[in-house]
């Protein structure tokens, strides 16, 4: 039951994008298409689960004063694994994500979970927390990139949805569109979340 709560926290109550507003840089940059958003989300899930598990296992033997460098080493290891894996098996996605894939190393979400959760909790709970937070991030990215791709490029997963005469609103795939859509989604998500919270009481 407690593990399920940790999992649900990551997706809904403490959603890293919609509630905590961390890890914004990659969120705004890579969500121009659904495939990019999904790939980025899954890469973060993999890194977050791995780093949370290892940091949690090492938490008793890591000296407090050098914990940040230790986190960096652990996270960088997993990012490198994911990056090499994608370079080998998913070349187009790897090229589309570009610099934002190695930049997962400095993603706030991963550091925040290492510092706030994995360093204080056991390995199983940390693994579940990594999964929940990663899926929360993926959920946000896929939602954001779906809206942006459908209305900004007129396609979904690269498949054109509308006829030739449809002229998509180009602003949505440009940087300002990311801010506008993200702002509206955060608003909707939090209204829905609060409504649910009050109805539960």
């Amino acid at each position, binding site marked *: 039951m407690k593990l399920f709560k940790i999992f649900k926290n990551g997706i809904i109550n403490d959603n890293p994008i919609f509630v905590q507003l961390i890890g914004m840089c990659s969120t705004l940059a890579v969500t121009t298409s659904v495939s990019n958003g999904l790939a980025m989300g899954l890469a973060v899930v993999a890194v977050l689960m791995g780093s949370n598990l290892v940091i949690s296992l090492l938490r008793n033997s890591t000296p407090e004063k050098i914990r940040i460098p230790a986190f960096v080493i652990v996270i960088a290891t997993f990012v490198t694994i994911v990056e090499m894996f994608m370079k080998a098996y998913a070349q187009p996605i790897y090229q589309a994500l570009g610099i934002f894939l190695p930049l997962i190393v400095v993603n706030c979400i991963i550091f925040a979970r290492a510092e706030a959760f994995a360093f204080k909790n056991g390995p199983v709970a940390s693994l579940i927390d990594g999964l929940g937070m990663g899926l929360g991030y993926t959920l946000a990215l896929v939602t954001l990139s779906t809206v942006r791709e459908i209305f900004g490029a007129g396609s979904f997963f690269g498949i054109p949805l509308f006829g030739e005469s449809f002229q998509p*609103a*180009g*602003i*949505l795939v440009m940087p*300002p569109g990311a801010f506008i859509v993200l*702002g*509206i989604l955060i608003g909707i998500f939090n209204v829905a979340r609060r409504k649910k919270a009050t109805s539960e009481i």
Partner: protein
Amino acid sequence: MEGKVLNTTKAESAVPDMLIVSSSPHIRSNESVERIMIDVVIALIPAMIGAVYFFGLNALKLILVSAASAVAFEALIQKMLKKEITIKDYSALITGILVAFNLPANAPWWIPVFGSGFAIIVVKQLFGGIGSNFMNPALAARAVLLASWPNIMSTYVLPGADAVTGATPLAIMKFGGVDGTASATVAQAGSNLPSILDMFVGNIGGAIGETSAVLLLLGAAYLIFRKVINWRTPVVYLGAAAIFLAIFGVPADEIIYHILGGGLILGAFFMATDYATGPITSMGRIVFGIGAGFLTALIRVKGGFPEGVSYSILLMNVVSPLIEKFSAPKIFGRAK
């Protein structure tokens, strides 16, 4: 029932009805949001007639679609957000008209619908509705439309029934020939420019509501006469734009084209004077005008676009709170 009670008190106390005891304010003006907005609509009517006269029925269609969709979106979003529906204050109507004024005459019908929707829903209502928007809704809509559909938004038609596409005077000055070839010399560009009388009357290419300087000034004079807008922002804006254009090396005889062409008159009198998005202090309004004039001149001369009024007003909208903070008058009797 109520009348009966009133009668008894009247008979007993003998106090006249006029003597009402209440807290201040005691003197009320009959100004209201509706009154001000109706004045702005009246001031926009000459330019609307001009738009239809110069650009034909498609301009009328764009204005009607834009105004109707702005009012409809306002009612819809306020109903969705469970707010009081305030379409009767005419502010959405004005936003709709101003969105249409920024469009080229051959724009398809869905352009004003999207523009009005963005202006009303995202820029106005999501930030708290009338008086709470941080930038001018109509101009923000124009910026979004220009970024989304640059082809539609920058292909202007010349006045007349044939709907021939052609360059605006600003584009001619910036890029040279009518076909946009940058190699044309200044002399050639000058020969392609319309006469100053055409510029003043509005018989030139451009967005439907911005071309006729004389009709816009007529409306602006009415607004200043009615004290709806303050002269400071627009006059300083136009003056600063002229001065900075001269500083950036625009020849003296072309500056008049810069003032009368593009959206400068429309922007200065009808958009920079927006209550919610500009400073309210006199000093602040002057600073706003100078800043907007500088940015307009900078974008027009040094930037990539021939026109910069919308971006300069939007940028000044964003710094307005800062201007207000530093231009607030000293409170009498308070030590510094």
